[in-house]
């Protein structure tokens, strides 16, 4: 039986969503300062207006619905899913004011793509946008990768009993420390240390490639944020191709592979359990699937004779494949190259890699290495059971931070989420095909959106059908939050409507 919805439920959801919105408003001050540094007065004004508007909305929401009640699991799920929608809309205001988008829907598409670390974009004339807007785009992916709620938890919410539940709703279910605020601080600590190192390394490479020193470090920060958060944005429309630098590509590849790791794994390794990196089921699964899908890509590219030597094959093939597998979406080839040069096998291998994706509780998307590992181990255990004597007790195990027993429940939950991912990939592909795109293109683009990758074969552009834009946005949102919180939000809305009807009937 579904419970009824009361006024206090709305208060709790409104209050915490308000706090997250205030967090987004404060975040807008970073691109505003960037614009001021670069003397982009108009852009700075855009961000000032957007920040005031966002802070006002957040403050009013928190004030009107102020409560001391602790969120329960349902509230937490609704807050997580709802906050992302509110953040998407308000973060689109600077895009709209910049005049670089055709409609507010396009602005929302880009912010949803940013927060979900997808990397698809509809922004017009990307090569001439302000540094402030560039900072905003990359900051969205960086914050989205860590989780907006994690950000708000660190600075605004504090250690309430329901805070961890909100994080779970955002897909960060690993309980690294007993105190939820410590988890949030820990996630930020790891990310910020890597941000410092990454900005310097990539900045120096950019400088060595002839970019002016002060600008080189901004490029370093942008590319790092894009790589670490497995986002895929870049300051120029040619993405990584702009730099023509193998050093930049390899450094970025290191950071996006690191960014695709589970935060719990980072924590274990940083706390001295260094062997975990070789034993963890997600890393084992990731390594096997990367090498397998890459071998398929090599086969496809060698058959077609696309690249003349091993270095060219490695620079383009391995970079693109790993970029897809980690759900980053940074690209050093043109979008149509997938169709024209990589061919059906190359595209299929990349699509499979994107669909599998990165690690759970990481900045990446897809159905995750942990689930792949669990399902494969589950199948292997079932086969062992069939081959063993009837009275033998066969139990499966998997190693994730410690040895875990593979129960039927764990395998079932992993399989359900994988089925849901496959469902959104297929629905997106069907809508694409209904608009006349070839099956391979429609599937590639849909998987790219649903797994939050951002590689494109050219379907995503400002002129694409509106319904397809909305479908991709939904795919990005659901894929990022891993369904549960989104379904809870839909259920909550339906229950609210039913409760209102019941109250009216009683009156």
């Amino acid at each position, binding site marked *: 039986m579904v419970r009824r919805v009361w006024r206090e439920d709305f208060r709790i959801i409104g209050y915490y969503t308000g706090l997250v919105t205030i967090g987004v408003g404060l975040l807008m001050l970073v691109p505003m300062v960037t614009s001021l540094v670069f003397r982009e007065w108009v852009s700075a004004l855009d961000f000032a207006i957007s920040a005031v508007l966002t802070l006002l909305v957040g403050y009013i929401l928190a004030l009107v619905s102020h409560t001391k009640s602790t969120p329960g699991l349902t509230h937490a799920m609704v807050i997580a899913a709802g906050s992302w929608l509110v953040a998407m809309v308000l973060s689109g205001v600077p895009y709209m004011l910049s005049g670089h988008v055709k409609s507010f829907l396009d602005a929302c598409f880009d912010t949803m793509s940013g927060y979900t670390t997808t990397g698809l974009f509809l922004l017009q004339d990307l090569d001439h946008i302000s540094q402030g807007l560039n900072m905003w785009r990359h900051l969205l992916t960086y914050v989205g990768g860590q989780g907006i709620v994690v950000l708000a938890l660190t600075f605004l919410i504090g250690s309430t009993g329901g805070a961890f539940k909100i994080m779970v709703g955002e897909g960060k279910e690993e309980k690294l420390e007993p105190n939820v605020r410590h988890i949030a601080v820990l996630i930020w600590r790891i990310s910020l*240390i*890597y941000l410092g*190192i990454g900005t310097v390394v990539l900045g120096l490479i950019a400088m060595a490639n002839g970019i002016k020193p002060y600008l080189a470090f901004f490029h370093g920060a942008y590319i790092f944020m894009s790589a670490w958060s497995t986002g895929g944005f870049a300051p120029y429309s040619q993405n990584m191709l702009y730099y023509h630098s193998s050093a930049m590509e*390899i450094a970025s*590849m*290191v950071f996006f*592979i*690191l960014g695709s*790791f589970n935060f719990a794994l*980072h924590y274990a*390794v*940083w*706390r*001295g359990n*260094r062997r975990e*990196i*070789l034993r963890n089921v997600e*890393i084992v699964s990731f*390594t096997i699937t*990367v*090498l397998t899908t*890459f*071998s398929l890509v*090599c*086969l496809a590219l*060698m058959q077609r004779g696309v690249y003349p*030597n*091993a*270095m060219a*094959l*490695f620079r383009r*093939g*391995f970079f693109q494949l*790993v970029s897809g597998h980690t759900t980053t979406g940074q690209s050093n080839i043109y979008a149509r190259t997938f169709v024209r040069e990589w061919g059906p096998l190359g595209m299929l291998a990349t699509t499979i890699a994107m669909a599998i994706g990165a690690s759970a509780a990481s900045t990446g998307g897809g159905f995750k290495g942990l689930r792949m590992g669990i399902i494969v181990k589950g199948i292997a255990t079932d086969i062992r059971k069939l081959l063993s004597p009837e009275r033998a007790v066969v139990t499966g195990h998997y190693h994730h931070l410690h040895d875990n027993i593979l129960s039927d429940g764990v395998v079932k939950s992993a399989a359900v989420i994988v089925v849901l991912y496959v469902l959104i990939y297929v629905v997106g592909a069907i809508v694409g095909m209904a608009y006349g795109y070839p099956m391979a293109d429609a599937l590639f683009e849909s998987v790219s959106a649903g797994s939050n990758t951002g590689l494109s074969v050219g379907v995503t552009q400002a002129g694409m059908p509106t319904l397809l834009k909305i479908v991709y946005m939904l795919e990005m949102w659901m894929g990022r939050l891993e369904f549960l919180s989104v379904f809870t939000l839909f259920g909550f809305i339906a229950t609210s409507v039913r409760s209102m009807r019941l109250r009216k009937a009683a009156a």
Partner: protein
Amino acid sequence: MQERTRMKRTTSLRRDLLGMLTEVAFTGSLIGVGFLICRLFFVGR
């Protein structure tokens, strides 16, 4: 007391650094294996 805090901080920093190096070394190895696969496909050509 201060000495102990300093020691704790140094140990923690060393642990973090070693953890980071382990992660980078693993990632580097994976990229290296990727390059070897590419070389393998060009053997005999």
